[in-house]
């Protein structure tokens, strides 16, 4: 067993699809777990057919960068789950596995005879995790939902945007990419718990609930404050004063002030160029300013930032001990960010159909046991390996199952 990755030796039977489950098992696989992804061309994951980029074709299941990213480091076992002989592969894999991961609609695993109570009868120490929008129990458990559903239900959507406009939603997912970290964390905690106690665990992870956790502060406010919490643009209780301000060439910079010293530094920077210092409120009065007064303040700062080059301004403000960051778009983070590059946030892998492209590495770095991101599998690439090497099937049995179209 290699010591170079923290999950070396962990065996995962992976029924995940779409985003939540696939990211969970990607994280486990990138950190060294052996992950057997069960999938089928009869019902391919959306990410194997979604044509978001021009290089992807309708004909192939193997030329989708989205799939490649979310399924790095895994093995692909192509399997018709409705085949009468499927249990000849699934049962030995259940014997082999430490962990089962799935994110189907609640009830689906039960129909396959693969729900936790059923698996547990033969494998009492199995660790299983189910990810879903609502969780496995409760009146809405079987309701439909996507990433935005969680944001809407949890209050994230209501609380995001300007007070005088419709709420907004970012063009990137949230709940779908946060939940997997909690799932993977709980799996690792359960693995270590099992090592010391011999006990298995079932983990029911709800994207809605994790999004509600993120809204805890607003939930307290709604019970104790006279003014109910409401979306407030870029203002925040975390900062004395903050905002997003225009820069030269239709660009933006974010500035946050957390204490009196930083406020004075900002006033000095701006006043040097423009307004009289007397026009500025003292730091201790900032939280008493009305929204129109804050808007006036924003206008003063904007007048100063508006003519400046954004990266130079960020350096200037940071030199003056003020938290400031360029509002970077994808071209900026991909092409120009020396910090992300320093952290090796992309790993270039040479895909057989797509060529070389950068795959995001897990964004948390472990000093002694780093991640090792490997290329995602083609559909069914590891059928023979899984059957013969992992579960020890004979060539004859493997060939008969293959000839009966199990591996489709």
């Amino acid at each position: 067993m290699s010591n170079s990755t923290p999950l070396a030796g962990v065996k995962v039977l992976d029924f995940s699809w779409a985003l939540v489950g696939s990211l969970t098992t990607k994280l486990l696989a990138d950190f060294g777990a052996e992950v057997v992804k069960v999938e089928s061309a009869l019902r391919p994951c959306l990410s194997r057919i979604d044509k978001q980029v021009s290089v992807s074709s309708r004909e192939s299941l193997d030329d989708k960068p989205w799939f490649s990213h979310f399924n790095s480091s895994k093995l692909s076992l192509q399997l018709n789950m409705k085949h009468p002989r499927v249990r000849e592969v699934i049962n030995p894999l259940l014997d082999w596995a430490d962990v089962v991961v799935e994110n189907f609609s609640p009830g689906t695993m039960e129909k396959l005879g693969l729900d936790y109570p059923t698996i547990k009868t033969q494998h009492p120490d199995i660790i299983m995790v189910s990810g879903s929008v609502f969780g496995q129990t409760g009146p809405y458990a079987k309701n439909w939902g996507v990433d935005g559903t969680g944001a809407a239900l949890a209050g994230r959507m209501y609380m995001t945007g300007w007070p005088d406009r419709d709420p907004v939603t970012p063009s990137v997912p949230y709940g779908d990419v946060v939940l997997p970290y909690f799932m993977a964390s709980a799996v690792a905690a359960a693995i270590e718990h099992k090592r010391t106690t011999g006990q298995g665990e079932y983990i029911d992870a709800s994207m809605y609930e994790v999004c509600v956790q993120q809204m805890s502060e607003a939930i307290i406010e709604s019970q104790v404050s006279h003014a109910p919490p409401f979306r407030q643009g870029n203002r925040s209780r975390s900062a004395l004063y903050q905002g997003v301000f225009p820069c030269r060439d239709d660009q933006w910079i974010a500035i946050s002030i957390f204490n009196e010293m930083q406020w004075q530094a900002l006033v000095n920077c701006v006043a040097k160029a423009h307004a009289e210092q007397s026009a500025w409120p003292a730091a201790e009065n900032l939280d008493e300013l009305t929204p129109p007064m804050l808007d006036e303040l924003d206008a003063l700062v904007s007048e100063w930032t508006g003519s400046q080059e954004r990266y130079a301004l960020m350096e200037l403000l940071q030199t003056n001990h003020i938290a400031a960051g360029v509002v970077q778009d994808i071209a900026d983070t991909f092409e120009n960010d020396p910090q992300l590059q320093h952290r090796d946030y992309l790993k270039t892998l040479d895909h057989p159909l797509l060529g070389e492209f950068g795959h995001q590495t897990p964004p948390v770095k472990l000093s002694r046991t780093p991640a090792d991101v490997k290329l995602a599998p083609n559909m069914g690439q590891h059928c023979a390996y899984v059957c013969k090497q992992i579960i020890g099937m004979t060539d004859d049995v493997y060939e008969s199952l293959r000839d009966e179209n199990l591996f489709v």
Partner: protein
Amino acid sequence: MPGLLSGLRVLDMSDYTGATTGSFLASLGAEVIRIERPGSASNHQTLIARRGKKSITLNLDDRNAIALFKGLIKKSDFLIETFRPGFLKSKGLSYEELSTINPQLIHVSITPFGQTGPYSQFLGGELVASAMGGTLATCGYPDDTPVLEALDACSFHACSAAAMGAMFAHRDRGLTGLGQHIDCSIQEVAASRNTNNLLSYQFDKRKLERAGNKVRFGVATVRVVWELADGYCFHSLMTGKFGAPANSALSRWMTEEGYENPMADVNWDTYDRSALPADTRLIWETAIAAFFKSKTKAQIRNEGHQRGIRATVANDPTDVMNDDHLNARDFIRSVEMPNAGAIQLPDYFVRLSNSDFRNPANIPSLGKDNTEVFSQLLDIGASELANLHAKGVI
């Protein structure tokens, strides 16, 4: 059965941006000791940050405090902190130094940009990290300033990633007996959400920019936030057979109630949102907007659900606390706050079947556990404790 992390001790010195990692570990049964400066102000953020934890105080500017801290490190399994990189080293408390005291220690650092690199000394916070990570640019109206997501979304996400690093290291420590340093950058975690954007950009140089109350799916920009009579809902027309039942249910409802319905004759089985001409989409969305504006949140929750239109009310925080589903799962819990009585709060992060561990139903006041922690872990007597307190060390 106790929790998955019962018997493990965590020192949590994070600020509000890193507090969720310790709260999650506490929810799995770890003993989490939150360390704050003596006399720290209490507000809702600092109280939430103490959920499920013990509270002690320690002033690291005092030499005596450093010795106490090293004593606690010797008896702990995890340290979580959010100091500016280099601060702990200046106190003689870098990972390298702490690991000589306790080689099993897992030291978790959560910072805006990470421990090393050209921006590591930059000051951050939620807004700046989300700006630099590329998520802020994807949120807001195209004709307006980019706008922050609710509360501290990217910091919370970073806490989940830091927890994962801590748990993976915990598994490794179980086999090797060795700890390590976990380096989590809020900027990089924010950037990790941008996968679609990154792939579109790498292959086609296309950017998915902010679209306000709409969302860009590939080449189509689709409205997803709709005003109701008394709030908002989330809804979009989804492609093909997958979306057909819900799309036709909405169309039928509009027709039945006599609303103008330009979608009445659409064959939803073949509808493709990427192929729909923009001017047709505008006509449809105008009609849908008029319909939703006439409906209340209650109508969308009840009749909308029965009809299967797949619209979700954008709950406000009060709606969340009153939600039948969350209450049926026992997720909403009454928690005693210092000086504020009982408050309804979300409880667990994930639900476990075989562990019946639950967080204590109260949040401690600042320093409530000083006596217990310092006397039990470091064997400090009452008079010495009083002395440390008088000197402002604790």
